[in-house]
């Protein structure tokens, strides 16, 4: 049969081409490498998870499918277009084969080849997932099904579905670009669908259905599994996944049928227009050649260059393809932009130019630009050959280097145009959101300065690759791989930016300090890579294909021939730049700034622990007083601190030896005591110093320690330059477990456990035993770390530039200008606290606008960047409301001022110090809040930081497990209460909903075992997600006032700011005191254990009960589970009070309807029937309608009632 012959020929043809096998090899290699990296990476990260866990392998297969899209695009586009491109169509059209035979033959043949490629991957994986490639301890038992199942359920069907789509597009559009664009869409669509739609609660099932790769359906059922489940449960093919496969099978059939219907074999000839011959008489004119002079001088060369560049650019830009691309880019920005301009916590931000541009250069658009760069580079290099003009063009008297530079310039023009398109769409986004402060110069600097440079570097690489590798598709694949390698180089152990093409030390833009400390380094790196790009250009010019000679030997010979003076000069210049810039960079990063690979840096921490960990429990004096004189030089990025500590011996025995930590990042110029001392150990590299006192410090006595430190950045580092002191927006702190980028510059007393390595895996790598308590920094706002709960008196004189304001804790005693000091004068501020505060403080210096008001004798000050006025009122209102509620319910506010200070967005967080709240530029200040649709996280963050003034600073948690329960959980609960007062219960419910989803999702991803709330240390998921759920459930059961009374008592007994320090058990005791006895079990479930419920309303009925009343009967099924740290669950008998609710018709949304009935009933394990009588027509009823008890399936709690049912 003809069909079989066409299939046979297709397969035969493919398999004979070496290109096919190269593609095959590259694909299998990259796919396996990627899959292994993902599998091993996840397993290493997550402790008990096996690298060959069935669900994990399943997910890795989705990645393979996505990678396979590129291969499918290449294969199917060739299959669809080969006959058209080689102009063989008419030979087939006149053969006695039917359309169906022809199309089906090509499709099936290619499909089989593609399926072959793809099936090899699981086999290779199966062989590789064992020692010595993967460490034995990361593997579970070998099960063939782990690899076979996803191949059958995922890989092969995906090849069929996507192949049909790509083939159809190729056949019907006859354009390669369309096929690749479709593949890109499917790829990105899969990614986006998961991100976007899953966020919207109700649409998750829809996403699962329409995702052609099955990614969403699979990850949906994976989200809430625990480690144990992931290791053992086979790929769970549930209903939504099957529907997805069925839907796509149907869609595939429809697509193929449509293709057959629309396809015309002889379209090419039909579409040909009749050639209108010139019907005039043939002219009898004689040809008499006119003489002219051809010129080949420099000006002519320039004209030729312009001609080539302009002509190539025009052909690329004024084509239908480009218009389509431009439109698609605009659409992409518009559709994603408004959603994606948000901070790390997905809160939308005002579309300031810095954020809009940030999106325009983020992963997705940058990837699109990279793909377009290689695409157009390929087009330019191969253009003449594709249209058959090559031999004419190649024989023309234009030198090779002009051809190359002309085409490169054309590519540059295309990139510029694309950036302009991006900029236009960015402007549209801003206008659409009502923001008209465009900051055009910022657009220009980032899009056309920074980013364009990056793309041009990539363009140089792409042109080189396309010239060297003669095959357009292979060239594309290689360039994409290079680009991906550049982006993920760190995963392969390449950290230094001199080694990875196109990379620089990174930058973040901030409205305060603009390009701040990053610019110089970035420019040097760009220059360095520019030298390489020049070298690439020279090589490409030498190897440029001209004429027929394609062989390697011939091209090398020609290259040698072409290497003339011009090439030599360019090469020399390139070498000069590379060596010069490279050397300068190396000097700065490695010599001056001390470059260390992450492993080396960790090694230092490990060494510190090894050498000095023995001093951990040595009795040390406590800091009780800090006096500082700080000089900040923002333009020079220098900070000088002269200070004195008062150290008191609060132990029962004399102290003879003092251990100190002096950060290696600062220059400690002086360290002395007011009595005789001797330095015993001075390890400047690791920062440890041990001092013996001539006379021991007696218990109860104090001494003075004076020091002088200077911070100055020397050279510039390979990445992450220090951002504590910048031109505008200086922020550095001390001893508060502060944000990542902030160093500890002032001396610290004692051995610092916080300097130790915390991640179990990293500790293993450096040969350290695991640390049980893992007492390291908890998130960004932790006040409960083990750094010593000292209280100090604080006083500081801070000098800074005359136009800046310095902010520090305490009352501002006075401020003055000193015009003679320094260049242009300096300004000074003198702060002092009125009562002792916890030993954590921060110092800010920037050009601020200030909002000042008074509440009840407390001065509230907001220090913000002058143009960031969006939320100043909102913050003030939140601070007032918080102070109001907390003083009424928990106790008085201990200070006379409360300050909120802004700092640049190098770290996106908020952090509390006594009397001061540090709020990052992009956290809160610039949040765009729509209270009708989402939680006012800006106000909530502020309220939480204010609450820390009670929970953390007055009530100080003890440095034991459960500490964060006292500080973080209570702070967040307090903030929620303020939100409830400001906005009502609905907003609280939204917040809790998000927390619930987050908690359950993150549970399954944790890299260490989960613990109950009372035992938390650095378990961020439990503290920040489960915490509020637990507290609000308690509130609903116990009542707001009794709960607050319990908290008040905690403040009363433990709120001195010093010992006794509160533990979670103290909190538990107070809470228990406020809880009625029938809920004591619940209290235990919520706080002392990890408990999950599964509640379902299985059936529901209602019948009139006379008098307008109805009797509603519910069948409820209930189960209760206790989970251990790894997620293994055991069912336990349940006998708890659970709310039963009946609701009437509601206008909008469930929770706004007032319940007809809402009361707690005793619910036991298993089935039970509950009957209630309500006044009013019921519409919905169910068990635990407010979702107070943590349940993984919450959609089955409530059931709707229709009036018919109740007849």
């Amino acid at each position, binding site marked *: 049969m*003809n069909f079989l*012959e*066409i299939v046979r*020929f297709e397969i*035969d*043809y493919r398999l*004979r*081409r070496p290109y096919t096998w190269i593609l095959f090899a590259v694909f299998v290699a990259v796919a396996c490498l990627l899959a292994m990296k993902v599998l091993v990476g996840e397993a290493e990260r997550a402790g008990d998870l096996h690298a060959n866990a069935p669900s994990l392998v399943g997910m890795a297969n989705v990645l393979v499918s996505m990678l396979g899209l590129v291969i499918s695009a290449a294969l199917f586009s060739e299959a669809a277009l*080969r006959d058209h491109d*080689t*102009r*063989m169509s*008419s*030979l*087939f*059209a*006149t*053969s*006695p*084969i*039917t359309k169906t035979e022809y199309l089906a033959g090509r499709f099936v043949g290619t499909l089989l080849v593609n399926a072959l490629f793809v099936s090899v991957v699981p086999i290779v994986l199966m062989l590789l997932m064992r020692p010595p490639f993967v460490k034995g301890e990361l593997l579970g038992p070998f099960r063939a099904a782990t690899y076979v199942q996803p191949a059958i359920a995922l890989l092969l069907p995906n090849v069929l579905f996507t192949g049909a789509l790509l083939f159809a597009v190729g056949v019907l559009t006859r354009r390669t670009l369309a096929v690749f664009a479709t593949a890109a869409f499917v790829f990105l669509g899969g990614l986006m669908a998961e991100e976007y739609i899953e966020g919207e609660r109700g649409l998750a099932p829809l996403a699962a259905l329409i995702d052609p790769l099955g990614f969403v359906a699979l990850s949906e059922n994976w989200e809430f599994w625990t480690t144990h489940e992931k290791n053992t449960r086979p790929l769970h093919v549930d209903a939504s996944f099957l529907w997805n496969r069925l839907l796509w099978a149907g869609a595939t059939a429809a697509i193929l049928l449509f293709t057959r219907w629309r396809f015309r074999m*002889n379209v090419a*000839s*039909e579409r040909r*227009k*009749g*050639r*209108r*011959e010139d*019907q005039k008489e043939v002219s*009898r004119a*004689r040809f008499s050649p006119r003489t002219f002079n051809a010129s080949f001088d420099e000006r002519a060369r320039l004209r030729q260059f312009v001609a080539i560049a302009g002509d190539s650019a025009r052909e690329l830009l004024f084509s239908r393809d480009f218009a389509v691309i431009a439109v698609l880019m605009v659409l992409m920005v518009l559709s994603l932009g408004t959603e994606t301009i948000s901070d790390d916590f997905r809160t939308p931000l005002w579309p300031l130019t810095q954020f809009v541009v940030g999106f325009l250069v983020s992963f997705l658009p940058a990837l699109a630009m990279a793909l377009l760069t290689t695409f157009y580079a390929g087009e330019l290099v191969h253009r003449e050959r594709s249209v058959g003009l090559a031999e004419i063009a190649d024989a023309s008297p234009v030198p090779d280097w002009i051809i190359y530079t002309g085409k490169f310039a054309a590519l540059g023009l295309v990139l510029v145009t694309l950036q302009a398109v991006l900029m236009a769409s960015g402007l549209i986004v801003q206008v659409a959101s009502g923001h008209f402060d465009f900051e055009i110069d910022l657009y220009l600097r980032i899009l056309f300065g920074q980013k364009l440079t990056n793309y041009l570097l990539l363009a140089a690489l792409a042109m080189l690759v396309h010239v060297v590798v003669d095959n357009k598709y292979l060239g594309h694949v290689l360039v994409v791989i290079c680009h991906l390698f550049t982006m993920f180089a760190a995963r392969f152990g390449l950290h230094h930016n001199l080694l990875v093409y196109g990379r620089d030390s990174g930058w973040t833009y901030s409205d305060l300090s603009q390009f701040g400390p990053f610019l110089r380094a970035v420019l040097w790196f760009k220059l360095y890579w520019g030298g390489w790009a020049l070298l690439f250009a020279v090589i490409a010019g030498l190897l440029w294909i001209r004429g027929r000679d394609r062989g390697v030997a011939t091209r090398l010979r020609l290259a040698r021939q072409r290497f003339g003076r011009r090439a030599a000069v360019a090469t020399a210049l390139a070498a000069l730049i590379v060596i010069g810039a490279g050397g300068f960079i190396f000097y700065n990063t490695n010599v001056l700034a001390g470059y260390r690979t992450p492993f080396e840096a960790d090694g230092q921490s490990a060494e510190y622990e090894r050498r000095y960990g023995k001093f951990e429990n040595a009795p040390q004096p406590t800091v009780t007083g800090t006096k500082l004189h700080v000089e900040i030089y923002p333009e020079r990025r220098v900070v000088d601190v002269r200070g004195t500590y008062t150290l008191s011996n609060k132990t029962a025995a004399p102290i003879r030896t003092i251990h100190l930590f002096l950060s290696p990042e600062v220059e400690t110029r002086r360290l002395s005591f007011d009595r005789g001392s001797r330095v015993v150990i001075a390890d400047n590299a690791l920062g440890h110093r041990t001092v013996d006192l001539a006379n021991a410090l007696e218990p109860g006595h104090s001494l003075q320690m004076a020091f002088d430190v200077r911070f100055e950045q020397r050279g510039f580092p390979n990445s992450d330059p220090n951002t504590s002191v910048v031109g505008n927006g200086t922020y550095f702190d001390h001893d508060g477990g502060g944000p990542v980028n902030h160093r500890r510059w002032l001396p610290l007393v004692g051995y610092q456990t916080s300097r130790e390595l915390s991640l179990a895996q990293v500790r293993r790598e450096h040969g350290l035993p695991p640390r049980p308590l893992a007492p390291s920094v908890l998130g960004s706002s932790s006040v409960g770390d083990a750094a010593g709960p000292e209280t100090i008196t604080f006083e500081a004189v801070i000098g800074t530039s005359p136009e800046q304001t310095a902010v520090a804790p305490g009352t501002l005693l006075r401020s003055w200008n000193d015009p003679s000091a320094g260049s242009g004068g300096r300004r000074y501020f003198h702060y002092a606290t009125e009562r002792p505060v916890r030993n954590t403080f921060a110092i800010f210096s920037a050009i601020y606008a200030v909002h000042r008001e008074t509440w009840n004798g407390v001065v509230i000050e907001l220090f913000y960047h002058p143009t960031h006025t969006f939320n100043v009122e909102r913050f003030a209102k939140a601070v007032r409301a918080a102070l109001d509620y907390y003083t009424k319910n928990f106790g008085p506010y201990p200070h006379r001022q409360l300050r909120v200070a802004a700092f640049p967005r190098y770290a996106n967080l908020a952090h509390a110090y006594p009397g001061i709240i540090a709020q990052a530029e992009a956290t809160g200040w610039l949040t765009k809040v729509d209270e009708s649709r989402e939680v006012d996280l800006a106000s909530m963050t502020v309220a939480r930081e204010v609450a820390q003034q009670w929970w953390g600073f007055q009530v100080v948690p003890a440095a034991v497990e459960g500490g964060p329960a006292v500080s973080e959980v209570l702070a967040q609960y307090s903030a929620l209460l303020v939100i409830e007062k400001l906005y009502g219960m609905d907003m609280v419910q939204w917040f809790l909903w998000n927390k619930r989803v987050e908690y359950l999702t993150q549970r399954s991803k944790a890299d260490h075992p989960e613990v109950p709330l009372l035992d938390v240390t650095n378990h961020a998921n439990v503290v920040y997600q489960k915490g509020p759920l637990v507290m609000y459930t308690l509130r609903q059961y116990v009542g707001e006032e009794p709960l607050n009374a319990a908290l008040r008592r905690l403040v009363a007994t433990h709120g001195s700011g010093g010992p006794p320090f509160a533990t979670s058990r103290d909190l538990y005791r107070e809470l228990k005191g406020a809880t009625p006895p029938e809920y004591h079990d619940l209290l235990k479930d919520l706080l002392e254990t990890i408990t999950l419920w599964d509640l379902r309303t299985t059936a529901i009925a209602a019948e009139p009960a006379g008098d307008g009343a109805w009797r509603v009967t519910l069948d409820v099924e209930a189960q209760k589970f206790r989970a251990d740290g790894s997620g293994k669950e055991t069912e336990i008998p349940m006998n708890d009070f659970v709310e039963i609710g009946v609701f009437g018709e509601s206008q909008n949304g469930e929770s706004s309807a007032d319940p007809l009935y809402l009361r707690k009933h005793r619910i036991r394990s298993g089935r039970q029937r509950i009957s209630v009588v309500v006044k009013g027509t019921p519409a919905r009823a169910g068990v635990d309608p407010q979702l107070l008890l943590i349940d993984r399936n919450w959609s089955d709690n409530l059931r709707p009632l229709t009036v018919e049912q109740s007849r």
Partner: protein
Amino acid sequence: MPDLRIRDVSKTYPNGVHALQRINLTIPPGMYGLLGPNGAGKSTLMRTIATLQEPDEGEIHLGSLDVLRQKDEVRKTLGYLPQEFGVYPKTTAERLLNHFAVLRGITRRGERRDVVESLLRQTNLWDVRKQKLGGFSGGMRQRFGVAIAMIGNPGLLIVDEPTAGLDPAERVRFLNLLAELGEKSVVILSTHIVDDVAELCTRMAIIDRGRILLESEPHGAVGDLQGKIWRRVVSRDELAALEREQVVISTKLLAGRTIAHVFRDGSPGQGFEAVAPDLEDVYFSAMSGHYGAGAMAQS
């Protein structure tokens, strides 16, 4: 062997060009030449007969087969060598020919092997059968196209401008090949090279601007023009005058002087010598409207 009957076939392209205007032809088995300038409609007609294009009006029958409506049947006995075609550069001649042989219905392997071998020998490609088609010269590719067209001894063979680009020896060989085939099938040779038609075709038609100007035997047409073609050598200035006075059907440059052929039923006068007409004269006479359908319309 059935005739090919073309009745009232017309085609107008969307851009307004009247490619074919009421074409009426009956083509018997044998070599049939279709002569005409570029843009005359030859290729359109060829493609229509080859089942690749639909006319706006008209009927075409090959024996009892309705060419327009029974395309699949026609393709079983059709061989088509297009004016422009390409091949898969990376496949060998033997393999691709084999593939098409299967598609054209020669499914039995032994039979197919024989057919492929004989075709390759006939087109003189046997020695290069294992070479990749990408390395073939223009002439070789043309011969390969003929080999494909000749698979299965088609009853209708259409070749569109086949000899353009062939060297003299190749051209002769090619035309001989076609002639052999013409003994048994309908072979339509569409060309603008007059000599091809003169040497081979038993019948011919001249087509211009979508209309048939002349349909006859080449031999007969040449005979018709006996005594009507005159020759004169003129200079450039004289030519303009000559064109005004006489019907100049063609001019040629020869060593700096112009040789004009004039059409006249009877001597134009002094300085003209009679010439034995050839098919080229027939062509030019028809094209200028002085012989054939155009002439009939005129008189």
